């Protein structure tokens, strides 16, 4: 790993809270690093463990389940 490695983070965002928070961050123009890719889910409880394992298996540096 080089020092300028940019981690790729996969985020599972609950539609009703975390995803809405992500939208509000936009409306409020809060700036944050562009390293996360968001998958919208209808509840963080919907995130099957296989999805997390799958994400790491495919090279994600981190997984965030937000709800």
């Amino acid at each position, binding site marked *: 790993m080089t020092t300028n490695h940019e981690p790729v983070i996969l985020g599972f965002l609950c539609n009703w809270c975390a995803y809405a928070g992500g939208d509000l961050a936009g409306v409020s123009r809060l700036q944050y690093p562009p390293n996360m890719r968001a998958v919208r889910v209808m509840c963080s409880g*919907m995130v099957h463990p296989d999805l997390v394992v799958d994400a790491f298996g495919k090279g994600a540096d981190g997984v965030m389940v937000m709800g």
Partner: protein
Amino acid sequence: MTLSEVTGISGEAGDFRVSVKQNPRYIDMNRCIACGECAAKCPKKVDDEFNAGINKRRAAYIKYGQAVPLKYAIDAANCIYLARGKCRACEKFCPTDAIDFEDKEKNVDVNVGSVILAPGWSPFDPKGVDYLGCAESPDIVTSMEYERLLSASGPCMGHLKRPSDSREPKKIAWLQCVGSRNLNRCDNAYCSSVCCMYAIKQALVTAEHLEGDDLSQTVFYMDIRSHGKEFDRYFEKAQADGVNFVRARPHTIEPGKDGTGVTMRYTLDDGKVVVEDFDMAVLSVGLEASKDALSLADTFGIALDEFRFAQTSSFAPVASSREGVFVTGAFQAPKAIPRSVAEASAAAADAARLLTAAKGTLTRSKSYPREKDLAGQQPRVGVFVCSCGINIAGVVDVKEVVAYAEGLPHVVYAENNLFSCSADTQDLIAKRIEEHNLNRIVVAACTPRTHEPLFQDTLREAGLNAYLIEMANIRNQNAWVHQNAPEAATAKAKDQVRMAVAKAALDYPLARDAVPVTQKALVIGGGLAGMGAALNLADQGFEAVLLEKDARLGGNAWHLDTTPKGEPVRPMLEEMIQRTENHANIKVLKNAALKSATGSVGQFVSKIAVDGQTRAVTYGAAVLATGARESVPTEYGYGEDARILTHLEFDRKLREDAAQLGQAQSAVFIQCVGSREPNRPYCSRVCCTHTVKSAIHLKTLNPAMNVYVLYRDMRTYGLNEILYQKARDLGVIFIRYDVDQKPAVAIEGADLKVTVDDPIVQRPLKIDTDLLVLAAAIEPHASDELIALYKCGVNADGFLNEAHPKLRPVDMAVDGLFVAGLCNYPKPVDESIEQAKAAAARAATVLSQEAMQLDAIKSFVTDDCDGCALCLDVCPYRAIKLEEQATEGNGQVHKRIVTDKALCKGCGLCAATCPKGGVHVHGFTLDQLKAQVSAALVDVV
């Protein structure tokens, strides 16, 4: 209608004509896309009233990020152009030409059957009260200002800083009853009802915002009024977490020595004077009637009370003095959110009752072309990338994203639009669907939370199923948050589009099912709440079956003498019973018991036993109003002497032989008998008010009588505080006791003696009394059977739970069930009636439809389900059942789950729990989510 005010009303209930003046917004709501360019370019800075003036906003503004509608406005009083004729910067930069300086005031007349007034409240302004010191120290703030300082969306982004030097405060004091319970420095004799709880909340939330263990929070109070459901537990948690509660009123409040912080001087119970420094002080300001309450009341011709709150009766708590005009929220009396929200539904119930004849006459429905059959077709994805003016295109290279999208699998068409949400782009998308035979659509634009319904509608109009759309959120969650990293933002936008396309390729048409509704209600419990709910539903034209376990309707109300406002309960009760029993739409079943409950919202079936016979009832919704009872005291000599009474026994005596009660020389009331104790750790809410009302009654019967009230905290919340004040004026003596030093009662021959430690004189007082009234706790009826039948929620104290205490205060977690009255929590007559009406209004939202349209995002069972039933326990909505099914052909019996679409909310806990892929959620199947994961990580090595 925003920026509007009512200028006049004529007509009568059922047929009002209301004149509305709509002030100009100067921004066309149809064009505004809430990009914020106008605010960014506006040179005029104005105090931001939403943040209590702590920071600045511009003259072109939205009040806050979650504003509805999310459309900007120009504040005419501060706009440089409107005031001085020069500027128009916003106009130059608005990407949609939404600025309209020609906008004029409009006057509109609306014809309505009922009116609901909900103007809210204003915080008490402590600026003029010199001893509070807010003029001298910037570190003395109001609770409203502090709320904004704490808020993540506030001026310091949730990183608490004190105003004087922007340092993090470590030692904070809250001063209660600022502008409440005070006739010396203001005219607000009432209790604002909410400040104790919000101060406790702020003290606890402060700890979440600050690091280190040197934090100290002190609340200076007179009585802690945590009289709501679960509130006492919260208060106790705060004490356990180290929040200091000091019963004192600091009388001298000055700036700290170096001009920062606050120095306070206060006197403790034992007379000791303390001088203490704090980094910051928060004034828990009370609620006042809204500033325009007087003019509003004048316009509508309704009566206000002496504090400018709307006058209502306890039996019609949301009806103003003018027929057809209803009031709700803090305009009616100061109150917290749960009751305000319930009251709002109550006002809706009363308003709807008046509109019954006109119901449904102004509704229109839209028709769509027949859906195209996609069977056998490969995905043909069209991608529409929105520029959103410069909102997206200013950061993300949208042309590059379009070119990238064209190369993705299944994509047959891609283009860029200036505004994908505009009406002409909707037509264009429909045209492209036709031209290119598109059968999946990806819109890369803003958030699906606001715009997906719009695009779903476009698809339906073009003959495609509404669920064949995916959105890539490249504005809110990309361009707006990566404004300084355009290259990374463009790369992210490509990833987002790729993920959306991957999912879209796996989208399939979904059907919105409809559940037929039996437009009839079951109301369980025939007390005030049950009758109130049944009557409102019946008046709205719905049939109601009212089930009462006793031989007569009325419940606890038979035992109450008067309401706190002095209205006799009996005549109102008798009238209500008569109306209930004679109503053509109500079927009253007395001596009845619920035996079973099956089905779900829209279609419940129950067996009810009445006088030994069982009958079946089918209903679409139910209101649970099973009530509560006064507990039987186990202390203070109760049951050993006829002079020792509970509240309800006292009320009966008042009705039957008031003269005899008046002969007593001395009377003692003991509060919290069985409440706020380990086995019932809640406040029974009604007792303090009942006691002061009774004490006043005794003093009126016999002014020479010595009346004592022994209490822990007097909780005469809201306007009930006036009774507490009146009782003190009449000479009722209030003595506080601690729970670990409770009063002692001794029966010595003919003498009844009460001993209590008086904290002021600091010695025990012995009182010879002729009457001892115990404020016995309210306890819910044991309703284990009911809870089991409906699988409804109950709290640790046995009270039926609402789905959400603030947002859904009368809905239960099980769809189609609603709750009202004492079974939910102890409450007085007016609040029970409010809740009953609220439950009726909420039940009517189900009952008013012949069939309930459901969303299509629901769980479904696959052939891989082997009936292991792991999902049954995790389903929060109890939407899954295990059933035995015969396999086709060989007739072998196997187990498999069945989901109830009416109950399922599509949360997918079942899908995440299932080890076999036996259950998925439409629109979010494991394959679809996996496709997004794979697409997100395709470039990662």
